């Protein structure tokens, strides 16, 4: 397997703050890798080191096989970066913003114009192409920002919290864009505070907290790693809930929870499901719903870090109104 991004032992301090306390990453080429963590975890710092904007105090990293410290100019030719805050020139139009990047990347005038038009169409910004970016909505700015980082057809794309502050519709659009990019062979490193986002897009996730990777794996592996699975049973007759609680509790060995006559209990033993089915059958309880599901990433995060991932940033924060 080839890795588009590798990082080993990245350490970065800002005065007394240790933003990165030894980050290791290996991102296979052509995949989406999610960096999941709360505010202040070190996500942006990691991206800035990998995108050659910041040098690490310790450790080293390669992007596309080139060392970010020794060969930054080469790395810059391979990457696209969409920072945490939409970084478009607000006084320029959508077209001019993309023309600027195209020309800086060495495209000829006509070529840069064609590329700008193509991207504006792809990102549904045709109608706004001739307007100054300061008149754009938050979602439009984000799309323009992303388009700007794609002008040079990067092999490796860094997306730092691409959907923070977007309404659900814009967020879904952005997710589709990312999926299309990966289908085209681009490697994406995506940071997010949203568990759902990492689950939706990333093939592999690293959970970061306090500048360290505290867990890593596919979304499924992470879910399996902590709490195993959850057995959920809902009897047809709500009067049977107490029987279900007794049976499930006995099989699982812990006290189940009850919510709206659905009984849930964490289980580790694969034999738990058939055992519960048999004993409920014996007791004559008719079951309306019976499921074994993985624990959600939310639960995973809580059990890994001891705190929730999304403390004060609502997922569906309203789209920023244009200034």
């Amino acid at each position: 397997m080839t890795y588009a991004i590798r990082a080993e032992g990245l350490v970065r301090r800002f005065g007394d703050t240790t933003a990165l306390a030894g980050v290791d990453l290996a991102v296979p080429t052509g995949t989406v890798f999610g960096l999941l963590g709360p505010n202040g975890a070190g996500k942006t710092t990691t991206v800035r080191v990998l995108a050659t904007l910041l040098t690490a105090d310790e450790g080293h990293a390669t992007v596309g096989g080139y060392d970010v410290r020794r060969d930054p100019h080469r790395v810059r030719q391979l990457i696209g970066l969409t920072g945490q805050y939409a970084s478009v020139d607000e006084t320029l139009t959508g077209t001019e913003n993309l023309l600027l990047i195209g020309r800086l990347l060495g495209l000829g005038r006509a070529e840069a114009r064609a590329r700008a038009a193509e991207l504006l169409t792809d990102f549904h910004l045709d109608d706004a192409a001739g307007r100054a970016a300061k008149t754009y909505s938050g979602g439009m700015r984000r799309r323009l920002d992303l388009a700007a980082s794609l002008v040079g057809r990067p092999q490796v794309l860094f997306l730092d919290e691409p959907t923070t502050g977007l309404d659900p519709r814009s967020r879904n659009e952005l997710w589709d864009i990312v999926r299309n990019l990966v289908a085209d062979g681009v490697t994406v490193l995506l940071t997010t505070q949203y568990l759902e986002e990492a689950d939706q897009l990333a093939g592999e996730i690293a959970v970061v907290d306090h500048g360290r990777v505290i867990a890593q794996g596919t979304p499924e592996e992470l879910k399996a790693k902590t709490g195993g699975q959850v057995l959920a049973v809902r009897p047809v007759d709500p009067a049977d809930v107490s029987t279900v609680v007794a049976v499930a509790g006995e099989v699982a060995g812990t006290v189940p929870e009850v919510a709206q006559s659905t009984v849930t209990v964490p289980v580790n033993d694969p034999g738990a499901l058939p055992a519960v089915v048999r004993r409920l059958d014996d007791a004559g309880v008719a079951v309306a719903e019976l499921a074994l599901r993985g624990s959600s990433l939310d639960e995973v995060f809580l059990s890994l870090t001891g705190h929730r991932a999304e403390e004060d940033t609502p997922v569906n924060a309203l789209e920023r109104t244009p200034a």
Partner: protein
Amino acid sequence: MTAATATATAPLAPARRLGVVAGLRHTLTLAWRSLVQIKHNPMELLDLSIQPVMFVLLFTYVFGTAISGSPGEYLTFALPGIIVQNAFFATMTTGFGLNNDLTKGVFDRLRALPIARWAPLAGRILADTVKQAWSVSLLVSVGAILGFRLGNGLAGLLGAFALLLAFSLAAAWISVLVGVLVDEPDKVQIFGFMVIFPLTFTSNVFVPTDRMPGWLQNWVEINPVTILADALRGLLVGGPVAGPALQSVLWAVGIAAVFAPLAVRALRRRV
């Protein structure tokens, strides 16, 4: 969304370094970026023009007779200095734009591109030089309409512009330093007003030195604004040139020697 958006084409081995010619091309592109916005926002051009023209008109007709005996004579005395004052204010544009780029994340976007490290700054300064040229031409034209006559013809005008440019390039480093140190663009402008107003008024731009109190005269005589204004009077109107011009150049070199390293270091530290 079509597949055309991004195709990870098999890359040529990327180049290790950049040539100077490429860096100059990036500088031109970035200068274009700073100037093209005037097209959408013609108000900026007006902004650039109104204040200096207003100063010329107000001072000539309100104070001219009181200070020099007649508006015409006063214009001859004051116009070169007003050009200097305007150049000082204009250097603040560099720091303002840079701070805007830093706070809005545009600077990071540029730094992540495979372009010359110095191009973003150079592009900005080049664009501001063009704006500077515009204001000088405007001031000289307005002056000409009001009766200002060039004493040394075109050569004097070009010399004045070259000297002003050298000084502005040096002073731009002060602006860059401020732009890097403050956390929002408006603070660059506040700095500009707090420093440039007193600095340019305590010179001989508007009032001859011997009309001021003695303690102030000592400062006025060593104020670089006075020295540059004298040099411009020599070049545009007539009189001694070599002395004040040489001193102006020395000031420019001194300012650049102190502030360029400070500004570059502050910028390195901030990004």
